[in-house]
């Protein structure tokens, strides 16, 4: 027999350390003492996020979310909630800024969840390889509505009302692209999906296609109806094997069921799509380069205008949108543009998916309404920084973006706010850094990436990126001069103004955020020749603290270059053996000695 209630006690590291275990024990004991152990099962669960509000207890099926619970609260929870069926109001989660009276109304108390899943609505529910499960969750209903009840103008109007902006990075209004293509007269038009996701650490698009491939097919068909196209292409990275495979299965099933192909739903409307595999060049995520690649040309950007919406694939009007943008479309058509526009901020509507990675406890995919703060994403959903370290910064927007510091934690995230804060939305990668990450090192990584991926067509990008990277390398080696800062700024300015495409225009962004937001750390590298985070090897030296070294020699055994030897002296008072020393000339700063020493006697200086 199943239980009446389930009492979930957070056993994540944060709550566990903070009396979580005692609360669990108390709840089990009280349930037994009060004779209800057959009615309630007490269970330990994984981290709920919200660690600063811990310890957390959640009771099902009411979904009551109790915060700051103490072991002494166990009796009241069992007596009131389990036995009498009344929620314990004083412990229920309440929004900090809203003094709402929760009075046990179930709908209100569920609001502790910060996520809202529109794009990822089916991930975790349906089998992506079964079209009927997609249909079972309102799939292709939006297409039916668009084909039978709506004119192309009405479709574009609905998208306009929704305020949907392109999720690929720049945030261009989707309806405008569709409208340009609709208004361009041409015998042939195309719909293209950009699934060439390339930012390091970003994988929202891959997961969306893997989990819900039909939503993309449905949205592209709706876009085709809106602009009058009958052929589509999905441009996806060849490395995304599983996504490609699921998309192939999905298009095959869609054809079998007749939601792709000729005369869809008997309306006389034809549409089909092909999958094109990209070979992994980052620049092919840029729309003109992507279209060139589909045409079989080298993937290099072309000057705009003409924009693809007017003159795109093989010179024909082409709508090109990102995976996540398309994934929103069926819900907008089905629930209405106004519904979508009711979510988010004034100028950025709907939700955004972020791939939360780096030094964060609960790394993963999160989808939140636009306007959610970085603090909520990192601390409430992400559970904060791993291993109790301090938050230093978060990188958004990939190689084109910037680094945001603690001061920006309470900025509501939307397209415009992120740009104002010196970064950008980008595709949605969010890499969290802690106090041990060196910002010069991270910025070098991004510059290195962009330099590798520059297609080489225009010189500002090809030469400028390389020059900035060389300067950063010099700084990391301890040979930086104050003049270098000025040089980075000058090169950046030139790249921003004269590069052909967004890749070159945005390559300097990480370097500029280094200068704008981490000036002190940069100065430490240039003037003091020190790396405060202890990452830049040339600016470090390793040393053994004489007083605490017991002379065991473990570090010397581990040292791969024999740089550590026993000092030629008598043992220090109270020690049996003489201390060891590191020869700075031989040391390669690999850190093996630090890992080996059990007495923390090896230190970085």
């Amino acid at each position, binding site marked *: 027999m*199943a239980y009446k209630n389930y009492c979930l006690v957070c056993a994540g590291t944060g709550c566990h350390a903070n009396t979580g275990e005692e609360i669990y024990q108390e709840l089990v004991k009280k349930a037994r003492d009060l004779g209800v152990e057959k009615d309630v099962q007490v269970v330990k669960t*994984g981290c709920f996020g919200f660690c600063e509000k811990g310890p957390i207890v959640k009771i099902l099926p009411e979904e009551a979310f109790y915060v700051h619970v103490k072991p002494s609260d166990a009796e009241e929870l069992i007596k009131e909630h389990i036995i009498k069926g009344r929620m314990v109001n004083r412990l229920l989660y309440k929004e900090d800024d809203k003094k709402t009276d929760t009075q046990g109304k179930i709908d209100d108390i569920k609001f502790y969840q910060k996520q*809202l899943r529109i794009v990822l609505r089916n*991930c*975790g*529910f349906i089998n992506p390889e079964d079209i009927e499960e997609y249909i079972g969750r309102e799939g292709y209903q939006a297409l039916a509505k668009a084909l039978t009840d709506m004119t192309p103008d009405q479709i574009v109007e609905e998208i306009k009302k929704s305020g949907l902006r392109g999720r690929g990075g720049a945030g261009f209004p989707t309806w405008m692209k569709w409208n340009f293509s609709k208004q361009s007269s041409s015998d042939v038009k195309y719909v293209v999906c950009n699934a060439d996701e390339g930012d390091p650490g970003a994988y929202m698009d891959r997961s969306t296609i893997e989990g819900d491939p039909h939503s993309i097919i449905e949205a592209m068909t709706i876009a085709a109806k809106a602009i009058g196209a009958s052929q589509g292409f999905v441009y996806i990275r060849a490395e995304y094997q*599983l996504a490609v495979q699921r998309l192939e299965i999905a298009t095959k099933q869609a054809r079998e*069921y007749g939601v792709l192909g000729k005369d869809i739903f*008997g309306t006389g409307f034809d549409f089909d799509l092909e999958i094109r595999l990209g070979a992994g060049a980052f620049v092919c995520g840029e729309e003109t380069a992507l279209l060139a690649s589909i045409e079989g040309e080298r993937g290099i950007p072309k000057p705009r205008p003409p924009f693809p919406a007017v003159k795109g694939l093989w010179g024909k009007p082409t709508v090109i949108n990102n995976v996540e943008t398309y994934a929103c479309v069926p819900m907008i058509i089905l629930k209405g543009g106004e519904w979508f526009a009711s979510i988010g901020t004034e100028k950025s509507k709907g939700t955004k998916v972020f791939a939360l990675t780096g030094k964060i406890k609960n790394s993963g995919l999160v989808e939140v309404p636009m306007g959610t703060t970085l603090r909520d994403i990192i601390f409430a959903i992400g559970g904060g920084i791993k291993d109790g370290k301090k938050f230093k910064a978060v990188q958004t927007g990939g190689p084109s973006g910037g680094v945001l510091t603690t001061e920006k934690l309470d900025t509501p995230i939307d397209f415009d706010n992120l740009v104002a804060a010196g970064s950008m939305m980008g595709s949605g990668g969010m890499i969290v850094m802690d106090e041990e990450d060196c910002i010069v090192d991270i910025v070098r990584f991004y510059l290195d990436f962009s330099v590798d991926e520059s297609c080489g067509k225009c010189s500002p990008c090809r030469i400028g990126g390389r020059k900035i990277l060389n300067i950063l390398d010099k700084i990391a080696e301890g040979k930086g001069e104050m003049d270098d800062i000025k040089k980075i700024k000058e090169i950046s300015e030139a790249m921003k103004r004269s590069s052909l495409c967004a890749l070159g225009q945005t390559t300097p962004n990480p370097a500029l955020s280094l200068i704008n937001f981490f000036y002190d750390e940069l100065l430490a590298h240039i003037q003091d020749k020190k790396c405060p985070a202890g990452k830049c090897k040339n600016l470090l030296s390793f040393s053994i603290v004489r007083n605490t070294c017991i002379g065991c020699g473990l570090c010397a055994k581990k040292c791969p270059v024999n740089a550590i030897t026993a000092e030629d002296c008598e043992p220090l008072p109270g020690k049996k053996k003489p201390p060891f020393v590191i020869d700075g000339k031989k040391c390669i700063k690999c850190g093996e000695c630090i890992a080996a020493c059990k007495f923390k006697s090896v230190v970085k200086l």
Partner: protein
Amino acid sequence: MSKLTLADLKKIRDEKNKEMTRRDADKEIQVVVGMGTCGIASGAKETFSAFIDELDKSHVNDVVVKQTGCMGFCSVEPTVRVIAPEMPDTIYNKVSAEVARRIVKEHIIGRKLVDDHVFDHPSRDILTQ
């Protein structure tokens, strides 16, 4: 098969929706394994096989084991959702083959949640609101 009409589409939706959301006591239990790239990389295929094997050994027949996409909990994959009559719709994390066998014994047969592996739902379902 022949091409769908609007009526067919609605029929499939209604039937499938009922099948996917049913919770009646005599109806089947669903085990849904997150099998995106992340899940598979963390061993979701072994988890999937372990469910099939353990259910087979225990002679439990009214269980459907199926795959789904990534639920977004990359740090604690593989993820599994279990929907059983009279039990909460539950998401389990870090479901190794061993934990999968425990889920069959404890959750599906024993009607108890499996300690230490229950995880919170990421959000409300916008399609059932």
